[in-house]
């Protein structure tokens, strides 16, 4: 079973896509959940500020989402472009 060079490269790119997106999803998931938890705690203490706190939570989560999106971009590049 000979492996062609081009096939090897393609296989590595596809395996890379899986690994990049899989591992890349861990951090944002945990981080965003923690942010949501702390926002619940803060809103529970001070319900009047619910709007402000929800906005802050979403902004913070959007930033921590970024590495997940980088992973997605890299995975899609590996699948469709490289």
């Amino acid at each position, binding site marked *: 079973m000979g492996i062609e060079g081009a096939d090897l490269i393609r296989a590595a790119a596809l395996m890379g896509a899986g690994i990049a997106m899989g*591992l890349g999803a861990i951090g944002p998931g945990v981080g965003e959940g923690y942010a949501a938890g702390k926002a*619940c*705690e803060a809103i529970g203490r001070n319900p009047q500020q619910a709007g402000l706190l929800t906005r802050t939570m979403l902004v913070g989560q959007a930033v921590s989402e970024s590495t997940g999106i980088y992973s997605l971009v890299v995975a899609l590049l590996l699948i469709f472009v490289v």
Partner: protein
Amino acid sequence: MAILEVQWVEAAAYVGAALCMGFGAIGAALGEGYAAGRAAQAIAKDSELSGPILKNMLIGQAVAESAGIFALVIAMLMLFVNAEGATLVQGFAYLGSGLAMGLGAVGSGLGSGFPAAEASEGLASNPSTAGSLTTNMLIGAAICQTPAIFAMVVAFMLMFTDYSSMALWPTWAALLGAGLSVGLAAIGSGVGSGMPAGSSTLGISRQPAAASQIRTNMLIGSAVSQTPAIFGMVVAFMLMFVDFSDRAAWPTWAALLGAGLSTGLSAIGPGIGNGFTAWEASAGVARVPEASGPITTTMLIGQTVAQSTVIYGFLVSLILLFIPLEASTNIVDWTIPLSAGICMGFGGIGPGIGEGIAAAYAVNRIARDAEQRVLLTRVMLVGQAVAESTGIYSLIVSLLLLFVV
């Protein structure tokens, strides 16, 4: 100097035994060490109680030890296995069996340490509740052992079923995948079940009058935390009992291995995440027993959302198991199913843990002020939805790999 097939099988059994005992020793030791540390702390607070605290610590540690003993039993059996007449595929059954039991004991051992640790703390602050505390500790720690028992069941089946007549390809991957699936999935559920067991034990020492409500909440919370391990066991059974002989060996083997990894890895996150939520719920019921209704409801909503990534993992496993792939030995064709399984598996860990933490804080606040329930549930769900996004990206990438590439 040729190596006989039987010799390979025997070698695989020894490696399997080593994996089983090596991994299996991690959890129990950590859990027992944590329990011992907390017992020392508790004794330092009130040295007159050293007798009952030490006794309780030893009982708790004995339960945590059982996960390690399961691993020892499987490893011992595998050392003295009779490989006569076995073919190479039996060796992979031994490797799978060792991985299942070894990995499966990690979470249960660690998780059982939590109730033992909190019982020491509870005894130091309220020695009169000793009986009730020990009972709750034992119930909680016993539930923690369930995932290790799931793993042991699969390990026994793999060890004692005769696979020698099966084709090596792709059966070897199914057997390894079965071990990985149940073993990895048991890690999250074992740790997760330990958390409510711990907080409910401490809670009963603070509010002995509400013991039955606290215990009920703990049982519900830890039962839900077991779900990911059950998904792992279901996939393991499918890998062991579905007949894949009519499928092309290449690249089906990669799909079977990917199926085991997808559910096994993705179950780790929801198991631990559900544990965080249940921890706060039991603590909340202990603080405010009247609010046990809203607390339990919010806990269940939060836990359900946190389960979603293991369901994605299970979905990808089912696709990998039951959608036949075209025969091909090309490296690209067998990389794809393996990559899809790894992608969804790892991708399920983070959102599961994060969403569980989000729900834990929401439950904590609802316990203090049940009137905020609607507002807090909404914020929790919005936050969890955002935390879910990377799990969905992983699902998308897995599906793209399987159906588009």
